């Protein structure tokens, strides 16, 4: 347990330092949201209607952007080999690394959501609905994205491939995240149904992600 806690602490500390790239995600999120009014026009009513979708899309793209950091830096300096060889089960290590990545790169996105919601003219209910769905959905993005990151790190030019591999897996999360937040804002469907599916997606990816990532690391690095 202490090994995993140490790993999580280390990963978060590296991510938050200069060049760690955790806050790049938030900056990118901000950029996407700021670019939207230039693309669709500064009509506040329209922005309110599109708001949840814009926020979700921005968060998804931002989390895709930071995913290749999950294993790449450790692979470059050789510590990934030590992690794979250590006696701790690789599945647990992968889960811990994903958790650390979510804490350092995913959680700031959720914290930034209320501020960005202001820019898109969302009211308090809408903003909290989007933040809640992001809180339930971004773990799924991280844990399925980890599979792609593990596959990409074992290839040599995997960076661009990562987005292609991960995108199909993240579409269901996007669909249910947006539909849950739309349901909370405008109705008439209930918020609970899509929201529980979103939670289910996160739980499923929590189970599948570490195993698939550990398998591809084991197979890819030998």
């Amino acid at each position, binding site marked *: 347990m202490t090994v995993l806690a140490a790993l999580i602490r280390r990963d978060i500390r590296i991510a938050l330092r200069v060049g760690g790239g955790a806050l790049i995600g938030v900056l990118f999120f901000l950029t996407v949201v700021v670019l939207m009014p230039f693309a669709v026009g500064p009509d506040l009513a329209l922005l309110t209607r599109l708001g949840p979708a814009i926020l979700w899309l921005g968060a998804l793209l931002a989390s895709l952007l930071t995913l290749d950091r999950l294993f790449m830096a450790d692979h470059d300096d050789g510590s990934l080999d030590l992690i794979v060889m250590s006696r701790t089960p690789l599945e647990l290590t992968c889960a811990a690394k994903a958790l650390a990545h979510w804490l350092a790169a995913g959680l700031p996105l959720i914290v930034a959501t209320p501020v960005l919601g202001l820019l898109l003219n969302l009211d308090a209910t809408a903003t909290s609905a989007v933040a809640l769905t992001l809180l339930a959905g971004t773990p799924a993005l991280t844990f*399925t994205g980890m*599979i792609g990151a593990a*596959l990409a790190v*074992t*290839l040599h*030019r*995997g960076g661009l*491939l990562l987005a*292609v*591999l991960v*995108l*199909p*897996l993240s*579409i*269901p999360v996007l669909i249910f995240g947006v539909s849950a937040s739309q349901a909370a804002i405008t109705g008439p469907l209930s918020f609970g149904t899509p929201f529980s599916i979103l939670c289910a997606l996160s739980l499923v990816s929590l189970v*599948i992600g570490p195993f*698939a990532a550990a*398998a*591809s690391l084991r*197979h*890819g690095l030998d």
Partner: protein
Amino acid sequence: MTLIDLANPTKFLALTARVLPWLAALTAVLLLVGLYQSAMAPDDYQQGSTVKIMFVHVPNAWLSMFVWGVMSLAALGTLVWRHPLADVAAKAAAPIGAAFTFLALVTGSLWGRPMWGTYWEWDARLTSVLILFLMYLGLIALWRAVEDPSRAARAAAILTLVGALNLPIIKFSVDWWNTLHQPASVMRMGGPALDRAFLVPLLVMAVAFSLLFVTLHLAAMRNEILRRRVRSLQMMQASQRSA
């Protein structure tokens, strides 16, 4: 000749060399019969003659999912038994599956234009099949990104198994979500809801397309095995030169 012998690439090559011409001929005959029957099938009372797109569209759609299923089994063979022939089977199937999926999307949208008044609709079935197509493309890209075939096979196998989760979503998407695409009418509880005049040509076409897949798949596997032999010969030659 047992199943184990088939796993030997040389025996596999010898067997498929004998079987392939017959298989190809049978496929051609069945396709001709199926196409003739489809052309002779009566017009639908609602859809008119456009219903005939179904005889091409539905087999393509079935095969698009079936091929991913075959690849998932091959992926298990790769990961559990580390069998090289399973790698070859998975790699050879991916482009064929992508082609079937693409044809299903194209014929579906050609059918959708007169029926629904639109080439494309973001409904659950169409969208999930589009995602399947994207996953095929990603998988092919992954195969091509790695130079060592056995490493590529293991990476692709993991992605294939994860992507297999999408299959039940596609299959049941028309039942779970109430959308434009019609619900299942052949493989369903309580027997097919299709008239015999349509069902018979459809099933003939389905068998013909499945045979087409088997033929193309075996031929592609042969090519892949030969390609790997050429590759290893070249590597041997290169190492001899440098020694």
